[in-house]
């Protein structure tokens, strides 16, 4: 199994498209950081205007943590695309290239193949999130240094002591990795269904965009279905930036997301096992 996962990882990382994600993050994150370097003071000033009316405060609020927090907020839509780009290609790409015929005529069970591919996709997804974490936190701390993290919610402002932030980010990135694994699993499922790689990528993005829009619109009818959309739980990493942390809610989100991963993968494996390879 590990041998096959290694082979799948080797294939993933020999493909140009795999690096699109890493490059996109490597370009986007510094752009946001430079923008914050130029405009950050003003936007922070704007964000804290209400606070400034009653309080005087000092300290380095425009720091690597804040930038990372903002980046994590901004990229939860974009990272799924980068994830789908690779995960949607895992099975369908072999169909398109005709290499299913080489792969599936090997003395390796289809379940092992599909599981290995899935794990390889999950590993890619996690590496992508790790890359995002390293770049936004690492570069952010180098450029802006550390400080207290200000988190502004609709009715509260929380400022976390600088020593109280890093672990939250680690957990938040961990959670983000789980969220992105759901995206990867969904793309993987679509990938098992079709014979070209564009379909799964587009379908995955369509599902996520529609779900996110429904999640964001506060209309009763939408709010009623929001609990049934996995995207509603993908932003739960924010719960780590609360005081006190609602671990029960986080655990619930984790379970729901992990359930989705298992369901999507299970369905993909079932389909793949029974699939007639005609390409």
């Amino acid at each position: 199994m590990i041998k096959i996962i290694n082979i799948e990882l080797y294939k993933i990382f020999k493909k140009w498209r795999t690096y699109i994600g890493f490059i996109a993050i490597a370009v986007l994150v510094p752009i946001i950081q430079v923008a914050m370097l130029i405009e950050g003071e003003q936007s922070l000033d704007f964000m804290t205007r209400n606070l400034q009316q009653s309080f005087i405060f000092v300290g380095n609020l425009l720091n690597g943590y804040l930038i990372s927090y903002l980046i994590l907020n901004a990229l939860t839509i974009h990272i799924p695309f980068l994830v789908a780009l690779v995960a949607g290609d895992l099975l369908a790409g072999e169909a398109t290239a005709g290499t299913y015929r080489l792969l599936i005529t090997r003395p390796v069970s289809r379940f092992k193949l599909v599981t290995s591919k899935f794990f390889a996709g999950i590993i890619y997804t996690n590496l992508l999130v790790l890359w995002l974490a390293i770049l936004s936190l690492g570069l952010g701390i180098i450029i802006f240094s550390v400080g207290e993290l200000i988190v502004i919610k609709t009715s509260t402002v929380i400022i976390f002591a600088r020593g109280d932030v890093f672990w939250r980010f680690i957990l938040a990135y961990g959670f983000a990795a789980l969220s992105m694994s759901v995206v990867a699993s969904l793309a993987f499922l679509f990938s098992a269904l079709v014979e070209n790689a564009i379909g799964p990528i587009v379908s995955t993005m369509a599902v996520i965009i529609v779900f996110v829009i429904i999640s964001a619109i506060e209309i009763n009818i939408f709010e009623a279905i929001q609990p049934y959309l996995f995207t509603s739980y993908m932003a739960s990493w924010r719960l780590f930036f609360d005081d006190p942390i609602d671990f029960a809610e986080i655990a619930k989100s984790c379970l729901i997301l992990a359930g989705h991963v298992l369901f999507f993968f299970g369905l993909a494996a079932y389909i793949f096992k029974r699939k007639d390879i005609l390409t």
Partner: protein
Amino acid sequence: MTDKIIEVSNLSKQFKEVKAVNNLSLNVFRGDVFGFLGPNGAGKSTTIRMLLSLISPTEGDIKIFGKPLKAKRNDILRKIGAIVEKPDFYGYLSAFKNLEILGKLSGTNTSKNKIMETLELVGLEKRFKSKVKTYSHGMKQRLGIAQALLHDPDLIILDEPTTGLDPQGMKEIRELILYLSKEKNKTIFLSSHILYEVELVANRMIILNKGTTQVEGYVEDLLNANELKVTFRVGDKEKALKLINENYWIKKLESQIEDRFVFNLAPEEISVLNKYFVQNDIPVNAVVPMRSLEEYFLKLTDKEA
């Protein structure tokens, strides 16, 4: 230990509208070079895909090496090397790396020497580092054979292995098949839509059409049968007709359209009949012998075209 390497019984595959394979049964024995002949769309590829568990049969059983394919898939596939349709590879990897990956999946020795040896066998050793996407069709076809041989399988399934090759390439493949069969004692299952190709290498064959067996037997028996269909084009058809009506040859006449007389003849009879016409002052403009199987097969493929 059975001598039946492949044992297919009552195999059918129904796609939505089309019955691609219909109640097909066949046996391939150890040491056979088995010709699996049929026009395009006859169900050859579907059958091969079922043999390799790429698609699952709607009905029927497949046993390979005496074991049921469904239950012993991995054991069986470990000892099969195959090319299915056109040779597609991971274009973004080198030929060497492709073989290495596939070899690992087959659970075979993937040492550099072994891979290079296999590449040398198909004449690709000089381009082993090049990405496969830079390969010509012929080179990919050879690489296809390389991957089928890498893990030293007992049974080699080749689906139209000469498609898209130039005559020299075709000849090389044929020689390779004979080498594998004679020197390496491999059993070979060769599908083709060209009778001539099968005739040159196969010992047994079936002709498949519309998903089912039309003709089955030893190539020698089938192709070198006693009678040939021979078309004589003669200068004076009335006289010729009158002449043969009076004797033995009328029994051999199968049909006559205009100046074309088609006889069923034993090979040695052709010259005799020719002489007979000439002696009776009937000019013979052309003699076209045709084996009955060939004619039959041409009809099948003509319909296809």
